[in-house]
Structure formats: structure tokens, C-alpha cells
């Protein structure tokens, strides 16, 4: 039942249950970009940041469009509402690195520039983190390519 049930939980914003089911589905279809794209959000919302990063980095290495080209309406992406809530709660977050990292990932589903902005903010809190540097580099490269195409 896993993938379809996971999708249903995702639509119902039951992220913990969705993560459980979609992880099962991922075991059967490890290459599925759709499953991984949803799982990243589910893990971020369930507090499983490490697992979210573990899925996020390879996915943007393969193809950033998988995340960046998602349509909030068509894909029923919950990121806009999650971001709205998160940004309102900025003052209560003690761990700014995680806070900015989470927003960086979530913004990539909606706006690349904003995403880079938050990844840079998280880099400020942890300048030696090579993974963040790698993510920023991948996103900047992607952004540059798109600017060239649009010109």
C-alpha cells in the first residue's frame, strides 16, 4: 500500500505517517524522484533533518528541476504554507543554522533565489560546512545556466 497511502498522508499533511509509508515505497523504487521530493518535506516536518539532507543533496545533484520546477498548485506542495509559518516563528528558533537550512531547502520548491539566500545565511552560522558550500555552488550554477538561457 505504501506509495499511494504515503501520497494520501502527504495530501492530508500527515507528514510522520507519510514519511513512514514513502520510505517503504522508496525501498521498492529507490530512483523515484517523486517519492524523494515528497520525503524531503516529510522528514523536514518530522524533525528528521539529517535524513532530509541525505535525500536532498543527491536529488539536486541529479537534477535540480525535480524540486525547483514543482508547481505548488498542481503538485499540492505544502512548502508555501510551511515557509509562511516558519518565517513568522523566526524569533523563537535558537538553532539558526538548522532554521536557515530548513528554509533553504523549502524555498527551493518555490524560489531559487530565496533558497540560495537562506543557504548563505546558514553558511554564516557554520562557515566550515562543506556540504552547504556544495549546495550553494550547485544552486548558483543552476541559476547561472537559467539566466543564460533566458537571455
Amino acid at each position, binding site marked *: *500500500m505504501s*506509495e*499511494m*497511502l504515503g*501520497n*494520501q*498522508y502527504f*495530501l*492530508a*499533511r500527515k507528514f510522520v505517517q507519510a514519511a513512514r509509508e514513502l520510505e517503504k515505497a522508496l525501498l521498492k523504487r529507490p530512483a523515484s524522484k*517523486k517519492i524523494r521530493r515528497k520525503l524531503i518535506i516529510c522528514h523536514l516536518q518530522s524533525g528528521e533533518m539529517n535524513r532530509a539532507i541525505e535525500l536532498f543533496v543527491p536529488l539536486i545533484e541529479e537534477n535540480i528541476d525535480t524540486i525547483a520546477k514543482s508547481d505548488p*498548485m*498542481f503538485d*499540492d506542495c505544502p512548502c508555501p504554507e510551511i515557509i509562511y509559518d516558519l518565517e513568522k516563528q523566526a524569533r523563537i528558533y535558537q538553532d539558526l543554522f538548522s532554521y536557515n537550512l530548513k528554509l533553504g531547502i523549502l524555498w527551493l520548491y518555490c524560489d531559487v533565489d530565496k533558497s540560495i539566500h537562506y543557504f548563505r545565511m546558514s553558511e554564516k552560522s557554520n562557515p566550515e560546512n562543506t556540504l552547504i558550500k556544495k549546495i550553494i555552488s550547485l544552486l548558483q550554477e543552476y541559476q547561472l545556466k537559467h539566466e543564460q538561457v533566458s537571455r
Partner: protein
Amino acid sequence: MGLREAPTDDILDSIGEGLFTVDVNFKINYFNRAAETITGYKREEVLGRLCKHIFQSNQCFDKCPIGRVLESGKNIYDMESTIRNKNGTVTPIKLNSSILKNEDDEPVGGVVSFRDISDLEILRNKFTDDNQFYGVIGHSKAMHEIFELIEEIADSDATVLIQGDSGTGKEMVANAIQMRSQRKKMPYIKVNCSVFTPQLLASELFGHVKGAFTGAIKDRAGRFEVADKGTLFLDEVAEMPTQMQLQLLRVLQEGTFERVGESKTRKVDVRVIAATNKNLKEEIEHKRFREDLYYRLNVIPIEIPPLKDRPEDIPHLIQYFIKKFALLYKKNIQDIDDQALDLLLNYSWPGNIRELENIIEYGFARTRDNNNVIQLDKLPPSIRKSSVNYRVSDRMLEKSDLTGSVSEQKVAIRQMLEKHRWNKTRVAKELGIGRSTLWRKIKQLDIEE
């Protein structure tokens, strides 16, 4: 075109129920014509869109019917819900839901069929009055005793056996018991035992495994499993083959059974309500019904009296059916004339309430919209003929006697009142009774001018 060559879309478009299917991502990939009519959306507007964006039901989040089937593995039947139409109005619906699977038994989509129950809702709201008990109409003492009993057993899970002639409303009473019970929000499954062959009945009640018999192409849960934690209504239970009666007895005693073709024992928690129009004691004498099962079923017996024994319910039932058909047929008929009412009050009603409903529907069909009363000549000829043989009232009037049956008394008093243009003093004088006695009789018999 033969059925085999008919495109599936054409077949699905021809059915009256709305039907749509979704893919694994809950995006609509089929939407039939009835669904267009009910929702107001055109097919091309919804295809590829998420079902929750189209239907906008509260249940999309908490009780998504496809999600529930995915969680439980059990199909959903007759679930009440609401949808938001394209124009923003909320429509009450009843829906069925199941999952579509691929060859590897993995879910690849879901299917939901639904029907608009707005008219039923209107009827429900319109007819909720003192003479109704969860949809059962009864003004008579006998029916009120049944309503009281249902109230008293509301907290019980005991088995109920409803006995009564055909058409007395056994299923309606079963519905009332279920709606008043603690299990009202749990599954309520109905099985008519007379419509299945013995093998199919076993499969229907207990389920089967793939290959158990020809045609058993996959595992299937039976009604007992589907009704787990809820209620199972076994209609026409006397028609159940004796072998199956033994299996039913075991479920009632232990809550356990096996699917056909399987040795694994399953356990369920199901409250059983059974009904029959047969005299089970006679069936036991003729060895057609197991005595032990009878006692197991007959924990709470309910006997619904035939309609001829409770004529005081007839006017209320007539009013109910008139209102119902006025809405369904969109006719402005509001009443039945006195002669027709008298005739119906004195009829013997072998087909009970079902027959009365049919007669009112017949009268409706034959009454033109510009006449808001069903007249005697619009009733079925078979009923009208019966009146020729029924002139008890004349006899009673001659005798000035008020000792006949309730229906006889009612007809006699009504005719006397009409004779004296509803002058109660004159009627009382002619009958040789006090005016207050007459008044009490009129109230008691529910006679209205």
C-alpha cells in the same frame, strides 16, 4: 454494438452514479457524465487535477475514502459525505470506494462512485416529527412500544430478531436499532439471505480465498469481516441453508469463522440483527431452522404488527408518502380525499406498508398536478373493488354501536360526523353517548375534519 465491443467510457457514462478514478498521486484520470452533472464540473476541467482540490470535502483530510480503503484493505460502501460543487454549494452524497491494483497487487489508483442524496436529506429533515422514530413512522401503541424497546436496548450489543409480515418495515426497524446503538458510526452491512445460492451466501458472509471455487479469482473478505466492530443485518434469515445456520451459530457464539477454502480462523466483533417474515417456531418444527440458532438470535425479539392491526398509523403513513412523492415527482398534491381515506382505512393490507406506498404512488401518478388531492377514483381498481365488500360502517351506524375494531369505529364515527356536518352534539346524541366521550374518541382515533 455488442457489450463486448462497447467502449468502457460509454458504459460508465450511461450509469446514473457519478464515478471518478484517481491515479497513485490522487490526480483524477477519469470522470463520468453523471459526475459532471452532480458536481457541475466538465471532465476537461478536472482531469489531471487533485481530487481534493475538486471536491473540497472536509473528509479529504481526515477520512479520505480512498485513504481509508488503503489503510484498512476493506472497500467502503454507502459512506455519507459532502462535496462542494463548482458553484460553491455543498451537496450531500453517498459514496462507495475501492482501490485499483496492478498485477503485483500494488495500488495504482482508486475509484469512487457517488450519488447525490439531497432529496433524501430534504425528506429526512422534513419528516422528522413526533410520529417518527429514526425514520420509522408509527402513531399506534404497538409501534410506540417498539420505539421504547429500541431506546431501552440502545446500550446493548445483544442480537435482535425482528419478525413481521412482508412489507411491515423490518429493515426500517433494523436501521433504527443501528442508528440508536453505540455502533452507529461503525460499519452497517446488510445481507439478504434469500438472494444467494448456498455457496455464494457462504462466500458473501465469510469471504473466500483465491481458487476456493470456480470464479474465485482473488481473495475476498466476507460481510462479517467488513462489518467488524459494527452491525450486520441478516434479512430473511429463515432462508439460510441449515449448514450455513451452523456456521452462523458459531460466529454468534464465538465470533470466529473461516473464509471459504481457508483454514485460518478469523475473529470479528459484529452485532447481528436478523429479520424474517416466517414463523420460526414452525420452521423449527419442520426441521428447516435450527432451534439453537433461534434461541441465539432471539435474545431481543421484536414483532412488528401487520398494518391492518394498527389502522391509526395509516393516515400518518399516507401523509408521509404524499410528502415524499410530492417532492420526488415535483407535484403539488397535498392530501387524499375522505372517501379514499376511508377506503384505505378499511382495506386488509396483505402487503402492509409497502403496498400502501405503492397505492399512494399509483394515485400520484394518476392525479393531475392541477388537482392537489388524490381522489377515490385514482386509487388502483383492485383496492376500489374491495370497498364493495366492506360496508361495516353502515352496519355499525345502524346499530349506533361503538364496540367494533379501531378501524371500524373510525369509519363509523367519521361517517356519522359527515352526516351531521361535524356537529358533535348531534352525533353524540344519535350515538347515545356524551359529547366528551365522543370528543375523546375523535382524539383517540385521530379523526380530523
